[in-house]
């Protein structure tokens, strides 16, 4: 077996396109996740009996089933129910967004619970409405304390975007698979792809550690 590391350079544009799709997928899913996580966390903490149940069921079901099963369910079953004709990329954004949304909701919930009740009482005593108390007083403090958890979830998401390759999204892992069948340079290709993910996640986790240090200094 001959190792030709040069294939990574020869196909750099192809791999880079995959990497860009991976980044795009992660960011789009993260945006959806945040949009879902805040209302879910609020529903679990302050909602009525029904909304509380629904939010709880969503979180528990996502956390108790494999992301791959969720991806397949959403990508294949949503079009059957809705008649929607969507691309694998959008299916993956929705599935991964729903997945990380549940984990982020738990992080938000812990963050909101961690804000001292005196803060709410003080804000209310100063005449803020319950909505502005939440938006302007509780949420900013909660976000600060749970930012590390959210960023860790994001790193997990970045790695888990790789499962989108199974429904045919042309991201980095998919590009690696194609390149493998085209060149038979399995060792070079998969080591290179794994290396790219490793670099991304090491940069991201260095960022998280830095953030934690800055926060520790401020407190």
């Amino acid at each position, binding site marked *: 077996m001959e190792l030709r590391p040069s294939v990574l350079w020869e196909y750099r544009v192809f791999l880079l396109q995959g990497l860009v799709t991976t980044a795009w997928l992660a960011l789009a899913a993260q945006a959806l996740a945040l949009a879902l996580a805040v209302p879910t966390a609020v529903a679990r903490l302050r909602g009525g009996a029904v909304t509380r149940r629904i939010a709880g069921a969503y979180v528990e079901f996502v956390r108790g089933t*494999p992301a791959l099963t969720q991806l397949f369910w959403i990508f294949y079953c949503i079009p059957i129910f809705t008649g929607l004709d969507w691309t694998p990329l959008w299916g993956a954004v929705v599935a991964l967004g729903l997945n990380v949304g549940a984990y982020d909701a738990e992080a938000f919930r812990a963050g909101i619970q961690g804000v001292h009740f005196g803060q709410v009482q003080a804000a209310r005593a100063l005449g803020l409405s319950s909505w502005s108390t939440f938006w302007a007083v509780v949420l900013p403090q909660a976000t600060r304390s749970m930012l590390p958890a959210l960023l860790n979830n994001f790193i997990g998401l970045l790695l888990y975007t790789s499962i989108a390759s199974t429904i045919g999204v042309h991201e980095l892992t998919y590009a690696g698979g194609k390149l493998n069948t085209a060149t038979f340079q399995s060792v070079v290709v998969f080591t290179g792809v794994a290396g790219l*993910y490793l670099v991304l996640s090491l940069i991201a986790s260095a960022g998280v550690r830095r953030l934690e240090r800055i926060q520790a200094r401020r407190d």
Partner: protein
Amino acid sequence: MSGYTIDLTGVWSRRDMLLTGLLVTAELWILALALGLIGGLIVGLGRLSRRRVLAWPSSCVIEVFRGTPPLVQLFWFYYCLPLLFDVRMSALTTAILSLGLFSTAYVGEIVRGGIQAVHKGQTQAARALGLSKLQTLREVVLPQAVRRMWPPLMSQAVDVLKATALASSITVPELMYQTYRATSQTFRFVEFYTVSALIYFAICLPLVSRLRRLEWRSGA
């Protein structure tokens, strides 16, 4: 709903497929977890060691397997191991090894965290009382650390179960693979994926609710 009717007869007539898949999932899960517990104890202790020959490789295993997607790890083991070492392994063995190392990395960090959380005074006291380093670790530090390690280990067990579904992409005939195969025979996507998801959920639920109780008790 656009008039879709649920029909579970296809699922019922293929229950054997799902059951065989479930058994393979269970085998993969338990063996990968066992490998992860043994490996995790080694690399977790290794990373804490003052000797660089132990600490450095342990850190490498932990960082590499936590910093890359488990799916890419599976592909790497499936395609590259036979080329590099001239070994023939079944897809299942490959997946056990790959997911075993994946959980090794996470268990390693749990072990490290658990040991670091034990107060230094405990070690100093044990050493002052004349216990050897190994005795201190085995009789004093580990028992206390293990109590703290329980909740994260259980949540890790759930994560490994969910990761076993990825093995379907290297043709391991586990639950997800069988589900996919059944849908390509019947085109009953909704029924099969829902049932399959419910099976995974039914295995996770007792673990998750037990975990919740543990966390409640420890006040975390």
